[in-house]
């Protein structure tokens, strides 16, 4: 077990939810379908709603990881050839620290580190879509120092500044064969950073009912010094010079409206509605420093659409120590017909989640969650002509440790 986890942690994470968004930022919330923006109950609220953090009264550190096992299959329409993904287990993680200067203070300070976008998708060697994609790794880490302030007993606001670091590595084969039958290969890699913010409002009109509105801004990851590395038959080396490229990937904004219902001391219900402005992902462009007749700048239309997700979850305190959670989320795909690519064979989906919490002591708590979803998509990509059926199964068991100082 130890070895598996060590291995998993070393591997880049893979994201699965709507495009390349990853909704694994809190185990309690994950257990409830990803809802909880209006239900401050652990330090993960720093991500979900900075405006509600001031209603969570403890100094707390919360660290979590969610190994994501994603298995994809592709059936090519014309030939009936089947290919499978060989994607590594992803490891989105989060770490939160929430602090108050004094007991019951109106002001809370926090630091959140999390991975809201990213994926590693890798297809088996020699698969039929190899000239469209063999592997895409996209990683982003957000660092978010946060301030949360309770204006009144019922109203809180909060804001976090986001610094994000990201890197991308895209690989595909090139249909240029040498005498030994080997195909060429292209690898584009680079890193970049971007800035954004996360603001939230939390309103608790009664003891039983909470509202929240949050907005996480778009972050543009600008790859300024990407490296393009081409392996081609020797005679074509001058047509495919290795060199720099620039690109930019928008990580879209998310607007959330949420409801929290504390039906009783034991039962709480959370409902979140997200609007993800995927319209920002209009084009994936690569601008090469050294252009040749064979190596031109590329602009691939993605034309993502804004998408909505609705998340519903409940938790029940079975005993003072044990809490059970259940959730369901419906997420619309941002990927239009004709634009499905092997890196995100996305579609509308239902996420089924469950979770459990266990208090070891007053200070130490464990939360675990499990997500399952299945995505099916059939499409003919307009740019590459890749035509067939994708099916992806995602299993994501996660674990968090919370320590109250």
């Amino acid at each position, binding site marked *: 077990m130890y070895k598996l986890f060590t291995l998993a942690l070393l591997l880049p994470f893979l994201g699965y939810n709507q495009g390349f968004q990853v909704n694994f930022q809190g185990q309690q919330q994950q257990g409830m379908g990803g809802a909880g923006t209006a239900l401050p109950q652990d330090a993960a609220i720093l991500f979900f709603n900075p405006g509600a953090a001031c209603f969570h009264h403890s100094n707390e550190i919360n660290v979590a990881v969610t190994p994501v096992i994603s298995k994809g299959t592709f*059936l090519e329409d014309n030939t009936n050839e*089947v290919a499978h993904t060989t994607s590594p287990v992803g490891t989105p993680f989060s770490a939160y620290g929430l602090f108050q200067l004094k007991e019951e203070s109106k002001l809370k300070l926090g630091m959140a580190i999390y991975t809201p976008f990213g994926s590693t998708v890798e297809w088996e060697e020699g698969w*039929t879509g190899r000239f469209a994609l063999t592997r895409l790794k996209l990683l982003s880490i957000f660092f978010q120092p946060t301030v949360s302030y309770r204006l009144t007993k019922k109203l809180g606001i909060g804001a976090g500044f986001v610094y994000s670091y990201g890197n991308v590595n895209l690989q595909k084969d090139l249909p240029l064969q040498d005498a030994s039958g080997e195909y060429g290969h292209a690898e584009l890699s680079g890193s970049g950073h971007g800035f954004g913010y996360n603001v939230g409002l939390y309103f608790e009109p009664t003891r039983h009912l909470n509202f929240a509105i949050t907005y996480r801004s778009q972050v543009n990851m600008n790859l300024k010094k990407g490296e393009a590395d081409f392996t081609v038959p020797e*005679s074509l080396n001058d047509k495919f010079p290795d060199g720099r490229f620039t690109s930019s990937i928008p990580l879209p904004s998310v607007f959330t409206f949420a409801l929290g219902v504390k039906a009783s001391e034991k039962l709480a219900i959370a409902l979140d509605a997200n609007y993800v402005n995927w319209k920002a992902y209009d084009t994936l462009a690569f601008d090469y420093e050294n252009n040749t007749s064979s190596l031109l700048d590329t602009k691939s239309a993605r034309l993502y659409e804004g998408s909505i997700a609705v998340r519903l979850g409940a938790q029940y305190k079975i005993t003072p120590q044990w809490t059970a959670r259940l959730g369901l989320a419906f997420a619309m795909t941002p990927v239009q017909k004709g634009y499905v690519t092997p890196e995100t064979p996305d579609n509308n989906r239902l996420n089924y989640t469950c979770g459990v919490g266990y208090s070891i002591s007053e200070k130490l708590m464990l939360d675990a969650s499990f997500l399952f979803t299945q995505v099916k998509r059939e499409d003919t990509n307009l740019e590459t002509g890749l035509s067939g059926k994708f099916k992806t199964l995602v299993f994501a068991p996660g674990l968090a440790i919370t320590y109250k100082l």
Partner: protein
Amino acid sequence: MKYTYTSITIVLFTALVSCKPKIEAPEASMGDVDGSRYIAIGTNNTSGFANDGLSFYSQDNSYAAIIANQFNEVSTIEFKQPFVSAGSIGFNIDGKSPLKLGYKTDCKGVTSISPVRIAGAGDLTQLINQYAGYGPFNNFGVTGMSALSVNLAGYGNPANGAGNFNPYFARFTSNEATASVLSDAVARNPTFFTIMLGDDDILAYAKSGGTSGPIPDANGAAGVGFSGSLEEVITSLTANGAKGAISNIPDVKEYPYFTTIPYNGLTVDAANAVTLNQIFNPIGISFVVGVNAFVMEDPAAPFGVRQMVEGELVLLSTPLDSVKCNGTGSVFPFRDEFVLDLDEVAEINSKISEYNSVITNLSQTYGLAYADTKSLIHRLKTGTVYNGVSMSSAFVTGGAYSLDGLQLNPNGQALLANTFIEAINFSFNAAIPYANPIKYAGNIFP
């Protein structure tokens, strides 16, 4: 207890990691087709001729062989070809070896990637007849075969002389003196056949710049016209109830051989413009610095030469070094064999159209599947994409044609095979999976 939990967790985790989602593929089916004794009759692409030569490698990737492979995906069949031996470099009947991509230095000292011969000479030992050792065969593709010659007895007999004899057929005829391609094919008692005939009658004329004999008439009796000859082939093959598919004739002018060198590909610098104008101004031809139309011979023109006009085609057989350095196409006008003038282009167009009417009619009369190769070739002219691979009729780089610019490479042959399979599936209630073109080779770069 703890150990058990750990084991269970590991087992579960391993199960999750190793599971693979299943997608049910539609069931493959031969429909009304009995592919057990499939034979192919045709010319260059059918035989697997490519890179201006015949080799084991090119034969193995003929569209006929690929169709047989796809039949094999559904039910096992045998498809025998008169192979050149696998170790041989291959040959053509001019004694040359096939082409490969290599480095070539032109008259100006510029080295670039270019088709070059694999060896100084082709392996003519491969002309020896294969029938006794390996026959009978299923692939009756014969390079350079006229549709009018398919039922010519003794077509494999050198004694019959040029026009009535084809050395490529001599390689696998069952009987040099008496057999025709058709009689050998019928002797196989085929259950299914594909036909691609008439294309080389058009191509022979086109690639000679219109200097070879006239294209045979579309209508006429067997051995005289295309219609009678083709009908004889079809009636013979369907006599025992075999089903079949027939290809129409593509616009051969869309092959790279005819599209690579533009009619106005003559680039002239200031000094050359002066020289050329001194020579040609007296006969009413003038040149500008930059792009100009080539000059060609034309007996009908005043002084027997004129500039080419739009719509006329320069062939890839043109000696390019002479064009670059010795004034061919300008000071020394192109000879007739290197160009297709407007009359010749019109003749090709009208014959293709007449031949295709014949093919359409006969395919309907005899219930044949109709493979629209003409559309495929046209799609390659404009460029097409398959699973992220762009393919076009661009010479060498287009990825679908072999290095002779006339025949397809394995990639293109797979597209052609799919054109047949599409027609077969459509007409005979079949669901034969398509070949994957990108699993077949393109042009090999050094």
